[in-house]
């Protein structure tokens, strides 16, 4: 084989590797989801199963609620600013959201926690954040949230802040549907 044709052959092989690795970058997306699922890493949009429902009356937690919107003409607030609850006790609260614009809008609420570690101990049974919310023009809606704080929560945490932010979905898809 002449050097030139040998070179061209190697060139083709190397281009195939490069293209395959470009594809691999995208393949990491489903691989990552699969790994998170298999490893049971916290999925924001799925209800938790309750395992331990023992109420730990030896301590009382303060749970504060916070609400924000981003890029949406919505007002969004919890009806209660905070509650006192024991770990293991079921907490119900209601959030209210109003679309102040005249047109329909699609939003998705994303939770975050302070302190961060509390996230894995807040077990949600029901949440408006499990699905996207579609509000017609000027519609107001009350939405429930139900959760239990796992009694395994480290003892040095006594105040938890649960914060939701509504993001606008420009006709996008949530994982719940795909």
């Amino acid at each position: 084989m002449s050097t030139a044709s040998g070179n061209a052959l190697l060139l083709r092989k190397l281009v195939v590797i490069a293209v395959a690795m470009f594809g691999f970058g995208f393949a990491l997306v489903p691989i990552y989801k699969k790994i998170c699922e298999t490893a049971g890493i916290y999925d924001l949009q799925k209800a938790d199963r309750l395992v331990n429902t023992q109420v730990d009356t030896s301590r009382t937690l303060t749970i504060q609620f916070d609400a924000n919107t981003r890029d949406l003409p919505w007002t969004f607030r919890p009806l209660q600013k905070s509650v006192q609850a024991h770990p293991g006790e079921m907490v119900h609260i209601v959030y209210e959201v109003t679309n102040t614009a005249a047109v329909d809008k699609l939003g998705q609420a994303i939770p975050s926690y302070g302190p961060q570690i509390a996230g894995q101990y807040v077990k949600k049974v029901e949440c408006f954040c499990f699905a996207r919310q579609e509000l017609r023009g000027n519609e107001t809606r009350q939405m429930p949230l139900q959760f239990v704080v796992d009694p395994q929560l480290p003892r040095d945490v006594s105040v938890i802040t649960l914060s939701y932010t509504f993001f606008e979905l420009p006709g996008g898809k949530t994982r719940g549907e795909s």
Partner: protein
Amino acid sequence: MEAVHGHDHAHDHHGPTGIMKYLTTTNHKDIGSMYLWFSFSMFLLGGAMALVIRAELFQPGLQIVNPEFFNAMTTYHGLIMVFGAIMPAFVGFANWLIPMQIGAPDMAFPRMNNWSFWLLPPAALLLILAQFTPGGPAGVGWTLYPPLTIQQGMSMDLTIFAVHILGMSSIMGSINIITTVLNMRAPGMTLMKMPLFCWTWLITAYLLIAVMPVLAGAVTMLLTDRHFDTHFFNPAGGGDPVLFQHIFWFFGHPEVYIIAIPAFGVISQVIPAFARKPLFGYSSMVYATASIAILSFLVWAHHMYTVGMPVQAQLYFMFATMLIAVPTGVKVFNWVATMWKGSMTFETPMLFAIGFLFLFTIGGFTGLVLAITPVDVQLHDTYYVVAHFHYVMVAGALFSAFAGIYFWLPKWIGKMYDEGLGKLHFWLSFIFFNLAFFVQHFLGLAGMPRRIPDYSLQFTDFNMVSTIGAFGFGLSQLLFLYIILKAIRSGEKAPQRPWEGADSIEWTMLPTPAPYHSFEKPPVIR
């Protein structure tokens, strides 16, 4: 450097002259020189940005630039230095040296070689244009993390295109290097006889082909998240910003070795030449380099200890990262053993090589400290990390590039640089580098976060020292430019073998300066 061809040795290569000559050249030496000059100009540009950062950090409070601009400076300093300065510099070395070291007439694909170079200036132009777009330059950090990246203005799009183009250029360059090394060696030049520099580039080129496309994929996803309503990294749409970090660092950690491994190659040739002994443990060097390259795919999440990974994953990444220190240690050991009982002299290339050895090892140790998960949780995103990676990238890669330039300059242009000034350049660089970066370890340990334009009062003294060091370091590089220009204009004529211990075939089988076309007839090796 290119200025001297043409008239210095009357070789008849007709064809276009002036700018057209450089636009159309397919000669590996011309292209190597263009890469090196491009790299040096990017080095000055990125350096100027670093000095803006350091000037702002001279005192607490905001005095010179606003925070947005400060963030843009950290972003583009990083991108320009990594993709514009360090990587092209070593591709420049590869172009100049690989054909001469393996006995080939030129690179395997000379025309593609020309393209891979000429992709760089447009990419640089995009990065510069990105400073002047409506909405201001992007201030996201060179790691381009979403969600911030998704919220930036037009500047971000230009930056993403620039990354695409730079990636294309690297991939084409790598294909060329692999093909040249594997197919174009002179008869008798077996793989295990190649100078180590060729080995390190062969391995680096494979790394580049494996990870640059992954980076291209990641920034493509950023682009579609920004403009086409995909939600790869947008939690509101079911995506995950942490996913970006995994993809980025799957590229990013091998990338740091893409920068380091060719530097190892240069050092592995300079040290034996000035110790006048063959490299200690040649084959163990090859194997160590290959194992570093393979391991580098398995440790990426040590950049992400604080994202909330399961503890098992953290443990795995911690131990895997520490494992890399083993082959790295083999290399350092071999370099030291090469010097052991050698008859050493300390010309400028050797000084830079020894400086590399010292400071790179410090950087390796701080890397090991950062590899320890519970420690890193404290140190992550502090100045300790900044100190770590400047020890491995500036005192590592950049110093080795300086060593290589001083070492091969006589071969390239047929003239000597001014030894006294070269030594001065080394000592100024060495002292000011340490002034600028050693104190950053203390700042990081005391908790000063990186990428923040202001800081609390107790950090003032060390920051002042660091800024003074940075300006001294930056100015010393103008001396380097002067030394090179002086050598080109009026350097003394170089002897055939200026370094008596240098014995790879570009020294022993080619005249000095190297002829425009290297081995038109393949040499016979041994």
